[in-house]
């Protein structure tokens, strides 16, 4: 394994996926608006799908399954993003803010 053929091994992809996951997790804790949280969540999903494709490329005898599951993840991510964005619009209409801390009506 040299610097130039890193793309032919499994570990670099796993490292990139780990970095993406950790960055997304930190973003989820760091951001205070729902849009920022949605962006971080997309990073988490991206890390998961990169892992799936990498394992399907290097570890499984069947090359298709990982790609198909990544397509499913993409579909679910699109559905999730559209729902969250509709919620954000409704929330902004009612509260004039997209900060998560304004949604505290159920607080005891």
């Amino acid at each position, binding site marked *: 394994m040299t610097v130039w053929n890193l793309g032919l091994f499994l570990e670099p992809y796993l490292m990139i996926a780990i*970095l*993406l996951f950790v960055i997304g997790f930190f973003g989820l804790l760091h951001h205070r608006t729902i849009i920022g949280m949605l962006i971080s969540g997309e990073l988490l999903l991206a890390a998961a799908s990169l892992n799936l494709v990498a394992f399907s490329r*290097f570890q499984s005898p069947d090359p298709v399954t990982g790609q198909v599951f990544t397509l499913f993840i993409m579909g679910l991510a699109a559905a999730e993003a559209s729902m969250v*964005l509709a919620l954000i619009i*409704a929330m*902004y209409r009612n509260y004039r803010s*997209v900060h998560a801390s304004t949604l505290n009506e159920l607080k005891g």
Partner: protein
Amino acid sequence: MQLISSDGLTILSGLAFLVFSANTIVGALVAIVAKSLIRSVSGLALCFVGMAGLYYYLHSPFLALMQIVIYVGAICIMIMFTMMLAEPRESTDVTLRGRVLSVLALIGCSLMAVGLMFLVGTSSWPVTERVEAATVKDIGRDLLNRHGLVFELISVVLLIAILGAILIARSGRRKT
């Protein structure tokens, strides 16, 4: 005859791989650290373009295309539209308490990263022989045969998500 030697090609492809990885990581960092959310979404788009390149290196060009079409073309643009409708101010907590919490979160996440990387580095991954790279035809056949039920369920989920999104975004709007 060959324009570039095979060594040169290896170095070129390795360089492109490094560029795509750096794209992914830097894009993700920009998406999280940037002050304004518009820059966050731009970083997200950069990250997704880099990931499309990585998918190409993983022998799945169809996924690379879908990544660009769905994520960069649809989701990032949709987030940007919502941002223009909702005009958020700064996304992170700038009070002292918020900063302290962010630093604590950073420490925890770095510990998690180190642990996971240690796990990946120390475990051995058995190498299996691959048959051949999957073509788009293979993916389509698999999608409709073996994963047919999941495929249909995803379409139902998407339909319900669209209906729900319309319903939620419309409610509370004044009728004129």
